[in-house]
């Protein structure tokens, strides 16, 4: 199986590199029957791939910056309950000519008062933190610059295909040169559609850095993500494990605009507790409404059956949770609800997740949701942390995680 994949990838690379066509793995629908492979072409393709990796890396390096932080918490304090940050610098990507830099919130676990950025030219600049999206683990930094900085080209999301090359770069090891890891795209839509998944090695060495395609175009910013954990470092325990995430956030994205305006985006909270319908019928039945929540304001009632969110059918409580991951606090969404015989469309505005002490006691008997953490297609984590965190998280959750 592995052999076949390699055959195909390398054959395509030969064909397309030879023709000078961009993106040899993009949108190639190869028929499942195994064509005979020309061994010479295969060898040549394999030999050419590293050159293509290097060329792609060269294309993005002018947009990569090294981030250094000064002061803040100690590594112990910053890593409490999760991954402990290292001593090294971290990586960011210039995304606007006037000095906006996209990077990961993971790089600021120490809450440093002072952030500096070293440009590829060697110039060091003081950076100000603009907005951040805690659900995507992304943030925007801003530096003052008189010159016009180079910006990367984003790969349109719909061009991405599972199996195409993906290259991750980062300067987190502390050297001037970036470390390069090559792999493929494992999934195009993950974590409530926020992220692209890759098997290139992602770790604190390249969190905040670029995941690029074979042409050097930006696929996304490497971040630690975990289906269960929500703390800033969650997902970092999966580093270098064959499962990594990069978040695409081109400037036209509304989240990018929000970050530019300095907003802090958090998980959204609808405020319902739901349960599975009998015989696994599609939908999620509302058991309980959290007072003063978006669900209450939307006049959602107990025994309502949520069948769709913004037009996407909700299959069961787990799926509903995963759908909610697409939103942040403040978002308005339309719920399609079955109440008795009638079908209603209710508009709800998501609030923020209430602090733990304000949360009502859990109802263990309705804990239907095991969690998306256990999606079968995901590889098991490197160590148990997300699994360990999971139950605690869930016991506190008022509903079966209506938030997210």
């Amino acid at each position, binding site marked *: *199986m*592995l*052999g076949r994949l*390699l*055959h195909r990838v390398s054959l395509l690379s030969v064909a397309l590199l030879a023709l000078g066509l961009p993106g040899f793995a993009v949108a190639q629908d190869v028929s499942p029957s195994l064509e*005979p*492979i020309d*061994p010479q072409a*295969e*060898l040549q393709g*394999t*030999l050419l*791939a*590293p*050159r293509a*990796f*290097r060329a792609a*890396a060269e294309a993005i390096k002018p947009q990569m910056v090294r981030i*250094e932080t*000064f*002061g803040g918490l*100690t*590594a112990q304090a910053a890593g409490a309950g999760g*991954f*402990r*940050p*290292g*001593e*090294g*610098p971290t990586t960011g990507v210039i995304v606007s000519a006037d000095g906006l830099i996209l990077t990961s919130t993971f790089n600021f676990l120490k809450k440093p008062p*002072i952030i*500096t950025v070293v440009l590829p030219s060697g110039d*060091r*600049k*003081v950076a*100000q933190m603009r907005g951040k999206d805690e659900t995507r683990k992304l943030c925007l930094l801003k530096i003052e610059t008189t010159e016009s900085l180079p910006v990367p080209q984003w790969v349109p999301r719909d061009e991405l295909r599972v199996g195409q090359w993906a290259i991750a770069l980062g300067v*987190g*090891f*502390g*050297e001037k*040169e*970036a*470390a*390069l*890891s*090559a*792999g493929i795209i494992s999934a195009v839509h993950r974590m409530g559609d926020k992220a692209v998944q890759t098997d290139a*090695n992602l*770790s*604190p*060495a390249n969190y905040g850095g670029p995941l690029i395609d074979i042409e050097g175009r930006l696929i996304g910013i490497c971040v630690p993500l975990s289906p269960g954990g929500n703390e800033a470092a969650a997902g970092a325990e999966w*580093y*270098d*494990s*064959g499962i990594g995430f990069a978040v695409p956030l081109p400037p036209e994205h509304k989240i990018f605009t929000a970050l530019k305006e300095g907003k802090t985006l958090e998980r959204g909270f609808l405020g319902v507790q739901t349960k599975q319908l009998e015989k696994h019928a599609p939908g999620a039945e509302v058991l309980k409404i959290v007072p003063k929540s978006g669900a209450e304001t939307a006049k959602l009632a107990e025994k309502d059956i949520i069948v769709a969110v913004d037009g996407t059918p909700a299959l069961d409580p787990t799926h509903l949770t995963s759908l909610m991951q697409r939103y942040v606090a403040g978002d308005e969404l339309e719920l399609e609800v079955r109440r008795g015989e009638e079908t209603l469309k209710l508009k709800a505005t998501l609030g923020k997740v209430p602090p733990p002490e304000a949360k009502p006691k859990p109802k263990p008997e309705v804990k239907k949701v095991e969690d998306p953490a256990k999606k079968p297609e995901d*590889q*098991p984590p*490197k*160590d*148990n942390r997300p699994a360990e965190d999971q139950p605690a998280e869930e016991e506190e959750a008022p509903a079966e995680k209506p938030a997210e």
Partner: protein
Amino acid sequence: MRLSIAFLVLNLLLFAICTASLEAAENEASLPGPFAPAVAAAQNRTVKIYGGTIGRSPGYATGIIVSDKGEILTEQGSMLASGTLRVVLPDGSEHTAQVVRRSQTLQVALLKIDAATPLFFDLTPREDAAAEGDWILAVSNCFKVAEGAEALSVNMGVLSLRMRLDARRGLQDFPYDGDVLLIDAITSNPGAAGGAVVDLHGELVGMIGKVIEGKSTNTRLNYAVPRDHLADFLAGKEPTGNSVATSPATRGDLGLRLFPLGGRKSPAYIDRVVPSSPAAVAGLKADDLIVSVAGQVIKDVGDYERVAETLAAGTEVTLEVKRRAELLMFKLTPAAK
């Protein structure tokens, strides 16, 4: 958990290899593929090593053959300290090995067996040495899953970066003084140390190192001791150590006194500038935060003290400081102390 994943991956890999070889047998058109010659070359020059103990369990590691006289390089470690060392050659034959020499700075040891080893890795320098992004294959005795004459396990990846190592092993600093090659194949596994990292030509790129954690990232590093360091060790040369601190006679002083409270781990704020010192002449002020000296990042007072010791009187250095929201650059010539 990490181990079991590695096992899983290994099993999948073995499965894939089995499937691949079956396919090859069935269909002559699908030849061994681009990696097979390099894998074979590496497997024929890499050995299994057993002996000593690691904790309470029997020790095992990997080694690479570096001459036709039975000379083998492996990682220096506790398993070499006691008991009999057994080396299993690629043909399955078993030999007793003696430790000839060790290097603390490279964490490498030279073993010798009383047998001819006609196939060996040549360590002479190469023009077309592997570069960042090049394919590499890592061959090792990881998890000692290869038994007897079974061929060693292979992982594939690319060369990520050559860098200076600053790492921990357990809670202690890892006493390695030299460059390492980072690779993106996962080799940070039991028994893999001493294994071969080769390029697509089967040429040795480096030797797999131990399970350690890098300080800059706090992650396990998958790395190899570079071929040139191994060649130096084999030739009896120790690698050049850290840049030696400037001798007290020629040491220069900038005239800066840092904020003393908070110790060596606190940010390097200037507390006082000695009047008419180089720092005063250049215009540095109290409360400036030192960000870099001579191109090196200063994270804290300790960093500054280390770099300050290497400054020579009369040689100009560049200092970067943060003053309020501004980053300012100063050129200073240290004065004799």
